[in-house]
């Protein structure tokens, strides 16, 4: 079989794999709800697998000068540019995971407070304090200057209220780590910019997997930004210009539309992130705070029972976060390093083929 045919076969196989992997992601088992911590792990794995295959097709056993000729002299540098943008998103998201871990820590206090028998006023107060902080941390409007919103809230328990410095301190850290004007939404927007599906002859050649990989990278970054709080997600694009007739893209597009729907729903209310555990935690926190607000010892037996159920659900979510969040950060770092390596490889190839380098 000659190289041309082999190449076509490889491309076809690659795109079949892509399709399969995303189909799997679309129908997660019970435990692995869409955009849960474990689902995100799987998403990142899918990215790493696809990327490895992609690199193999493009670089292995290939004469570098081939990739310096049109249209690759434009496509490869574009891919590299998108990769760099993805790196900044990885960093922002990894940072965002820290704020989710903070929520996890606060929920731990709530659990300690309410996991008492019999439940007293003191316990309820303790829980309420933590719940207020938790809800604020989650409804973090991740704009710059976010501490403005924090002080707007009425911290009206205890005479002095909660120490504002402490609150502001935590909230600052989200926007502290990145440049002032950096916006994750804009970043995604600029990644989508100029993304054009190959047509005609190009559609059956190497430009096709390049396009595929671009789409995958953008989708993964987009999903991460939608799930995890990070700076300035206002205006996150909800539509990807991926033509529906592409075979490999069906599951991916389906997923994207599902997530986009959720995003649009929640966007109006202002929210932390679509991370499944965060969403569930928010609901539980809301009902628990209502409970603690109205609680007086010894409390309504029904309500106490209900609260206990909520607490045990919260425990479960806490457990999942406890297990999965730090590994998620590590996983994101792995993706980060892989993208860096990939970029270096492609730059080398371009240099060898003596094309102008970015």
């Amino acid at each position, binding site marked *: 079989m000659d190289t041309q045919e082999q190449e076509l076969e490889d491309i076809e196989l690659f795109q079949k794999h892509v399709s399969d992997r995303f189909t799997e992601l679309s129908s997660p088992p019970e435990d692995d709800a869409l955009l849960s911590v474990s689902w995100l792990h799987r998403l990142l794995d899918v990215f790493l697998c696809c990327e490895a295959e992609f690199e193999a097709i493009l670089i292995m056993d290939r004469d570098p000068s081939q990739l310096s000729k049109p249209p690759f002299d434009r496509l490869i540098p574009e891919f590299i540019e998108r990769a760099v943008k993805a790196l900044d998103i990885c960093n922002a998201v990894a940072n965002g995971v820290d704020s989710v871990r903070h929520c996890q820590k606060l929920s731990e206090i709530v659990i300690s407070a309410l996991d008492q028998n*019999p439940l007293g006023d003191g316990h309820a107060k303790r829980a309420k304090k933590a719940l207020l902080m938790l809800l604020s941390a989650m409804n973090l409007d991740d704009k710059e200057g976010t501490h403005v919103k924090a002080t707007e809230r009425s911290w009206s328990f205890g005479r002095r209220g909660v*120490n504002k410095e402490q609150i502001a301190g935590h909230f600052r850290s989200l926007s502290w780590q990145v440049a002032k004007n950096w916006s994750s939404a804009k970043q995604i927007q600029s990644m989508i910019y100029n993304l054009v599906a190959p047509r005609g002859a190009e559609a059956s050649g190497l430009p096709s997997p390049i396009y595929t990989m671009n789409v995958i990278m953008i989708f993964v970054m987009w999903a991460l930004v939608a799930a995890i709080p990070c700076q300035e997600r206002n205006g996150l694009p909800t539509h990807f210009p991926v033509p529906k007739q592409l075979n490999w893209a069906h599951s991916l597009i389906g997923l994207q539309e599902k997530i986009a729907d959720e995003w649009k729903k929640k966007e109006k209310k202002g929210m932390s992130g679509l991370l499944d555990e965060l969403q569930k935690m928010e609901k539980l926190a809301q009902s628990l705070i209502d409970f603690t607000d109205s609680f007086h010892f010894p409390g309504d037996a029904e309500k106490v029972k209900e609260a206990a159920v909520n607490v045990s659900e919260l425990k479960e979510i806490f457990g999942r976060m406890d297990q999965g969040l730090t590994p998620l950060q590590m996983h994101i770092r792995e993706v980060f390093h892989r993208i860096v390596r990939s970029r270096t490889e492609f730059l080398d190839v371009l240099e060898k083929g003596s094309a102008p380098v970015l």
Partner: protein
Amino acid sequence: MDECQSAIPAHDGDLHVVAAAHHIVKALGTTKNLSDDLRKILIDLDAHLSLITSNIDSKGGKGFVEVEERLKRVERKIVIWESDRIMIWDSGPKEASDYLEAVDEVQTLIDSLRGLSMNENQKQKELLHRASSLLQMAMSRLEEELIHMLVKHKQQSEPTYIPSPSSQRNVVYNESVVSLDNESAKEASSKNSCSDECGEYIVDLVPEHVIPDIKSIAKVMFASDYGQEFCEAFIGVRKEALEQHFDILENGKLSIEDLLKMEWCSLSTEMNKWTWSMKIIFGVYLMSEKRLCDQVLGEFGSVNSFCFLEIAKTTILCLLNFGEAIAMGPQEPEKLLRLLDMYETLADLVIDIDALFSEDGGSFVRLEFHKLLEGLADSVKAAFNAFGVAVSSNGSLYPFPGGGVHPLSKYVMNYISMFPEYCSTLNLLFEDQHSDVASLVSEPQCGPTASLSTSCPMACHLRSITSSLESNLHKKSKLYKDEALQHIFLMNNLHYMVQKVKGSELRPFFGDEWIRKHNAKFQQHEMNYERVTWSSVVLLLKDDNPGSSSLSKSAFKEKCKGFSIAFEEVYKNQTSWCIPDPQLREDLRISTSLKVVHAYRTFLGRNPAHVDDKCIKHTVEDVEKLLLDLFEGSPRSLRNSRRMMKT
């Protein structure tokens, strides 16, 4: 004592046991020389036993009378502070310790009440509830006190020794340095001078006297299972403090995208800031922060390392990100020195990093920074290679006017004269490449003059750079049509290279052998120049018929004219040539003079009869004077100088 589970004994016999135990405790309590801890234990035990006794003595509600009394008393002590706007710890040590004692008492009461089996006793439940609520109130208050204390004392402990970033010498090595002479180039040396001054340096992030207070709050909160709240508060304030320190260092938070596109001048500044920030943050602040965490939280298991990691994480990730962005970037030659600074700084700090993050939770920090160190090592090597490539591939379209020292020579020699400062690092990094390069360098350093410094990896690399420079200069010299100028050019540049080596820290790395060889080279070019320029001229004055007497008039006139024309030609051309080095210029003039003037004088001397003839355009003195005009760099023609001489 908190774990003391007092249960209501069921039999009278147990009553006696309790009474006996109580008696013993009281007896022990009268012993002198009891340590404070032991005394406290006995007091607690006494309290518990009293509780049991009082509970046994009565049945039902009345038994809790004493407990209720104690609860009421301690309630007053705690609640009274709630209406007060003043902070307890601001009020004085007695108030503080009284409060803590009260909280302790509450916890004791709770433990005891819990320890009694739950007999659906209404009073017991009520008391327990009251006590828990009181505890929560106290804990909330303690949290506020803690934050207040930390914030108040945080602001007062800004170390004053940190120099502002602007005071850092920050010279960017670019083309402008080419025009600097040796002295100011040395001054502009970009190495971070503070590397030796700033080792580990632990500061009191919180004044020493406050620590026991914080510890006492910690103890009480942890004892009551409110340790999480303590950590939250502590981490929150300390994290913000650290980030404020970091902000003072003015590291711009830049995205990788921006850094990759940044122009060199700004990037150089940022790299400098990073190097400095790493030293301050890791060498000073994190060491101090770790100590603080250990002091405050050391006795509560792994909490101290958890808190430390949470406090430090964001800041160190910021530093890590920048380093990674740099390691990713295109490694151009001008980045080399900054990269070396970054590499050396991190190499020094890596031990501290390993120590600070030695437990499991911090392993990723260690890994990432080790990875970064490797990345920076690769960057240094890449930049060095790029430098070599730049040197050899630097092309010229036109010959360098005047034949003086080419900017490339200045750039290269000035640049590499800064490398010896980084000798040990470069040697380490080039160890593996050493053998390859040594064989490439055409001048093997062996024999008695070879020493450790001339054969080290850096030295070999330096010589390969100068070798490239030489080859390039040869190529450039070919652009001159005039062969004499080719030699002047090469003479100038080789001489410059030798001077640079002799007059800088490069000397031990190049060695005397190299200097000798290159001296010989430029001297060779000197001789070649003379030959090419003057041989034919001098030949004109040669005596065709030695031994015969003076020439005929026409022959003499012919020779004179020939000489004048040739001389004037040389004069016209070579006054615009340049020999920047005064010593070299002088040498060449002297040697030229010796040849030419001597030949002319001899020629004129051999033909005394024609000396007064008007065909002699120039006297010997004229020639001598005119030769002084050569290589000044400003073109002259003889008509001008003639006029000047006449006036």
